[in-house]
């Protein structure tokens, strides 16, 4: 077993090298802007850039709307399937996997052709509607992650008993979902939300093809025109992804561990 442990260390060290060298190199490159000395000039320029602030805020807002839309679509459906329509589960699981099968560029291509200015539903006719279409596209992309997160959360609570108890106490459907079910799966919903945020914040394809001033197209534009700023932006983007994943990890510690009634 001793040689086994040796090889395990070798594999781990090689993996760590492959994953950390690009990060170190990017940090180093991002600080090379001032000649002859390391500095944070690139970060200062990037963070002070008005377009950075505008596009970043645009993507944050788009991500927030995506999360709201995703929750509105996924939570009632996942809840209802657990409660009343378990026979629909395979169909819904299949649909939520489709965004992993159909590339994002194909989905947005379909939008552009189907919801063009001359179509019955002209999403591309004005900016507000196109923003809405982008949020819809992002919600589609995040569907697999959101559904899985919410469904896992619902598995750990006893949906049927909670619902019946609420009904006996005279609660209507909207009260049951917003005041009984949602608080119980809040942590699962939040993990789905942070994952959605991480995916949406730097998304390039959809935003670019819908001509929206989002963070992803801005990144691409900077990459094509600048030398040191892209490296600084890559580090910022990595930090955002890291932040989202850490929040998910921290949240998972608060999630209920045991399933009250596995079904």
């Amino acid at each position, binding site marked *: 077993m001793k040689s086994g442990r040796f090889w395990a260390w070798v594999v781990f060290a090689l993996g760590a090298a492959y994953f950390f060298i690009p990060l170190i190199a990017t940090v180093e490159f991002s600080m090379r802007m001032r000649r002859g000395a390391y500095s944070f000039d690139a970060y200062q320029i990037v963070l002070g850039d008005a377009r950075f602030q505008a596009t970043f805020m645009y993507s944050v807002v788009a991500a927030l709307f995506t999360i709201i839309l995703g929750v509105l679509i996924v939570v009632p459906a996942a809840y209802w399937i657990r409660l009343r329509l378990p026979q629909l589960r395979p169909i819904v699981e299949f649909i939520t996997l489709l965004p992993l099968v159909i590339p994002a560029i194909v989905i947005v291509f379909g939008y552009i052709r189907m919801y063009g200015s001359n179509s019955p539903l002209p999403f591309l006719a004005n900016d507000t509607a196109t923003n809405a279409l982008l949020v819809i596209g992002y919600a589609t992309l995040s569907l697999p992650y959101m559904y899985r997160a919410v469904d896992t959360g619902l598995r750990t609570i006893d949906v049927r008993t909670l619902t019946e108890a609420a009904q006996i106490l005279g609660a209507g459907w909207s009260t049951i979902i917003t005041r009984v079910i949602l608080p119980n799966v809040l942590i699962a919903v939040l993990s789905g939300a942070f994952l959605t945020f991480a995916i949406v914040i730097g998304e390039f394809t959809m935003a670019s093809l819908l001509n929206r001033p989002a963070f992803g197209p801005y990144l691409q534009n900077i990459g*094509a025109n600048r030398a040191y700023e892209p490296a600084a932006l890559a580090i910022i983007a990595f930090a955002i*992804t890291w932040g989202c994943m850490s929040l998910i990890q921290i949240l998972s510690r608060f999630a209920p561990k045991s399933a009250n009634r596995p079904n």
Partner: protein
Amino acid sequence: MTDLSLSNQAIAGKTAPPADARSRRLPTQWFGVAPFFIFAVMFLILPTLYLMLGAFQNDASEFTLANIVGIFDPPNLSIYLQCQGASWLSWTPGNCQLPTILAAYWISIKVSLASALIGAFSGLAIAIAIVRGGLPEWIRSATLTFSGVASNFAGVPLAFAFLATLGRLGLATVILNTVLGFNLYAHGFNILSFWGLTLTYVYFQIPLMVVIITPAIDGLKKEWGEAAATLGATTAQYWRMVVIPVIWPSFLGTVILLFANAFGAIATAYALTGSSLNIIPIVLYAQIRGDVLHNAHLGYAIAFGMILITGLANVFYIWFRTRSERWLK
């Protein structure tokens, strides 16, 4: 559970008039899932079907196979893509062939397959090392956390990171040159090439493999190892006759998932290589932006081909997954 709901229904049927119960139940039964299905049909299924039908139609909306044939037609893409420095089919400079849509598919398949295979084997090795290698516990949790982050660190920023590492002025390139005297670019390496792109994709492929395959390796029961040892098996025999057959289906399934994952990706490649390495999503991107093929329906056909390839890949994935679940319960 079913008994309970049945008896509930039976009671409800006895106490309330059936017609009344039905009229109240029918609409609410579908109420909860209606938004989901309306959304999925409008923004996922119909747009995809629209493209797939468009792939088999001409401008007059008549049925045709011309668009599909067009994919296999060499000169189409040459309108848009002049033969560029780095060539297409064999990635050696100077051996320049006319670019075609087919060549773009082919290079996409090659990059996806190469990055999936490299990612899968490396990811498997890392997973085995952290689960079975007797490493300290914190390494396992740190690796899994990092994998969660790195598997989502894709797109444009990843391209920046690799340009800063292996670009002409990247840290790794410079250190190799100054310290070891090895000039990467003089030896034919280029970040804007097949291997450059593959090496970059591997950065999100390995972590994805680690995240997916670690539970499968956890699922290998200790008893199997003990049983094999009791029966006198060597370590090599245990691996060859127990571990590999059990892990194989989920390994293959994940390879396919990684393939589909790389095949649809565009942002990393676009930011890394611009249009000097035209994988099929970049060709489709150019077509959507500016109808570079001068035939809208040819764009539909390209999209159809992409769905076909990732769709087929996922059929295999589901098939392998159901096979692996038999053992790893």
